[in-house]
């Protein structure tokens, strides 16, 4: 790539400044604060702070609540990622077959992505609210004992669906692009080679979109880990009995509700490590993108 030459030596720095400033103020400063806080202990009234080394970390990691929250998060994230990807793939393969109104169909599919997480959460909350939700009413009419406000597994199901729902659009777009990049002649060659449509999908199409699927798996897991605070807060607020309290939600509860700043900061530091690891996986993968042809 040719190097662009700026006539002015200062201009490039000026142009970079806003971005650098934003990163400093909204990332490095809070991150360093979290690191700092995570080795301190503050009493409940905020009068005294003392240096406690790594004891916040050891307290967290030996706390059964934290470990069960970790488990909740894993279940939540994997379920959300899978539930967000499978229907997206199904819809994308269906979109391939649409002859007329392809654009309209795709636009419709993209809309949900524009809905803010908290709004998405509220939407699902209303639909499935045990006392006034339409769907809750229908479920009960079919004899399902529906009460996510009391039953942990139902609450989990509800937040998973609410979180996955809006990701379907995003995944759909990627799957459509991936499917389009498969040359039609490959599928035709497989048809001549005697593979039926199901077999063609699993032996030709699916392996060829595997790189996209893997990419989306990472993206969706990261989303479910870190970007679902609004949905959980709106739908279940972590309840009932912590059944939907993910790691991110727990940081908020412990820090802002229970006012355990040191413990909360240590939890964020652990989360930060997880983000860094996941991002590293993603980058490594993007760089070594699987090239076939």
């Amino acid at each position, binding site marked *: 790539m040719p190097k662009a030459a700026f006539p002015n030596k200062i201009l490039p720095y000026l142009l970079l400044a806003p971005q650098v400033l934003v990163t400093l103020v909204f990332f490095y400063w809070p991150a360093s604060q979290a690191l700092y806080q995570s080795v301190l202990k503050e009493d409940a009234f905020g009068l005294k702070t003392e240096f406690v080394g790594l004891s916040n970390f050891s307290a967290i990691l030996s706390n059964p609540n934290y470990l069960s929250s970790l488990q909740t998060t894993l279940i939540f994230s994997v379920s959300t990622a899978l539930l967000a990807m499978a229907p997206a793939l199904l819809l994308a393969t269906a979109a391939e077959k649409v*002859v007329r109104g392809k654009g309209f169909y795709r636009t419709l599919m993209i809309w949900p992505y524009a809905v803010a997480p908290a709004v998405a959460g509220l939407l699902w909350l209303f639909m499935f609210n045990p006392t006034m939700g339409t769907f809750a009413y229908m479920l009960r009419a079919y004899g399902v004992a529906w009460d996510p406000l009391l039953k942990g597994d139902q609450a989990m199901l509800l937040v998973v669906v609410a979180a996955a729902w809006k990701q379907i659009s995003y995944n759909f777009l990627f799957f459509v692009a991936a499917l389009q990049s498969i*040359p039609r*002649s*490959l599928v*035709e*060659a*497989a*048809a*001549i*080679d*005697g*593979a*039926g449509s199901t*077999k063609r999908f699993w*032996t*030709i199409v699916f*392996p*060829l979109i595997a790189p996209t699927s893997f990419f989306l798996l990472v993206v969706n897991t990261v989303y479910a880990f870190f970007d679902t605070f609004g949905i959980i807060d709106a739908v279940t607020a972590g309840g009932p009995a912590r059944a939907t309290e993910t790691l991110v939600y727990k940081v908020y509860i412990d820090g802002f509700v229970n006012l355990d700043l040191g413990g909360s900061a240590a939890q964020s530091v652990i989360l930060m490590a997880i983000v860094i690891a996941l991002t590293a996986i993603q980058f490594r993968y993007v760089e070594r993108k699987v*090239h*076939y*042809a």
Partner: protein
Amino acid sequence: MAAIELSEVRKVYAGGVEAVKGVSLTIPDGAFCVLVGPSGCGKSTLLRMVAGLESISGGTVRIGGRVVNDLEPASRDIAMVFQNYALYPHMTVRQNLEYGLKNRRTPKEEIARRVEEAARILEIGQYLDRRPGQLSGGQRQRVAMGRAIVREPAAFLFDEPLSNLDAKLRVTMRAEIRRLQRRLKTTSLYVTHDQLEAMTLADQLVVLNAGRIEQAGSPMAIYEKPASLFVATFIGSPAMNLVPLDGPGASPLATLAGPGKAKQTLGIRPEHMRLLEGGAGVRADEIVLDLSVSGVEVVGAESYVTGRLANSGPEIAVRVPGYSHLEPGASVKAAAPLGAFHRFDAESGRRLELA
């Protein structure tokens, strides 16, 4: 082994484009039929209808006597070689070859035997464990052929299989495809826009134009007696020279006009003419044309001298052995034997035979 018979086959695409307008053709068992025509004339469409990749809007397609109109591609007992090879990129060469056989539940030993044999015939044995991405264009081409021959189908279908190769490789692969087909004696339908490829490969040559068959026959029959102006200019390179009889410069040719009042166009191939240089004499059966040279194209073994007929007439190319030193602007005389001229109805483009 099977003959392919098309009768009144038509294709109208969803948008209303009529790509194939009633094609009837019989390819005898074991023959190599080449479908040639300019881009967009409906060659691929026709081939894909035979393969079952495109629905047939009208008429019938028979393979080995069986009507296949409503059969899936897999049930038609054909194999196809695609222009971009369409090899499965995530499978090794061996897996590519095995795929069609496994889908048909061929016994393991039989699969191994056929893959072995195809690898030997095509000399791809040492690449069997590589992926297509690790092969050169020519090697991929061989694998694509291998995938077709392991199936031992009733017919091979080729859609411009050589157009992604460089010129030299194209010539080698062309000869190889021909040799392979002679050896296997499998009925083949081959589509190309390259008339040279068509001439050299075909037992049966079919010239397609705008969705219709313009002429079908042996390559030499078509070369010697093109049925229309379109075929006359499409087959042969450089193209046949055309002189409208009522145009400028045509007066020396007036004696060649056939009976009837129709407007006529005469055609003569560059290789049937010679330049009168260095006092060469004119034979009694020749006509002499005055040309003012407009360009010289030196091919190597021969040159093509192009000149305008009688200053304002059509351009005429003449083949000259070796290297021509003529300069643009020079005046030359060219001789053409009377028997080498073709006559066409200028309006319909059809060939006119002298009774």
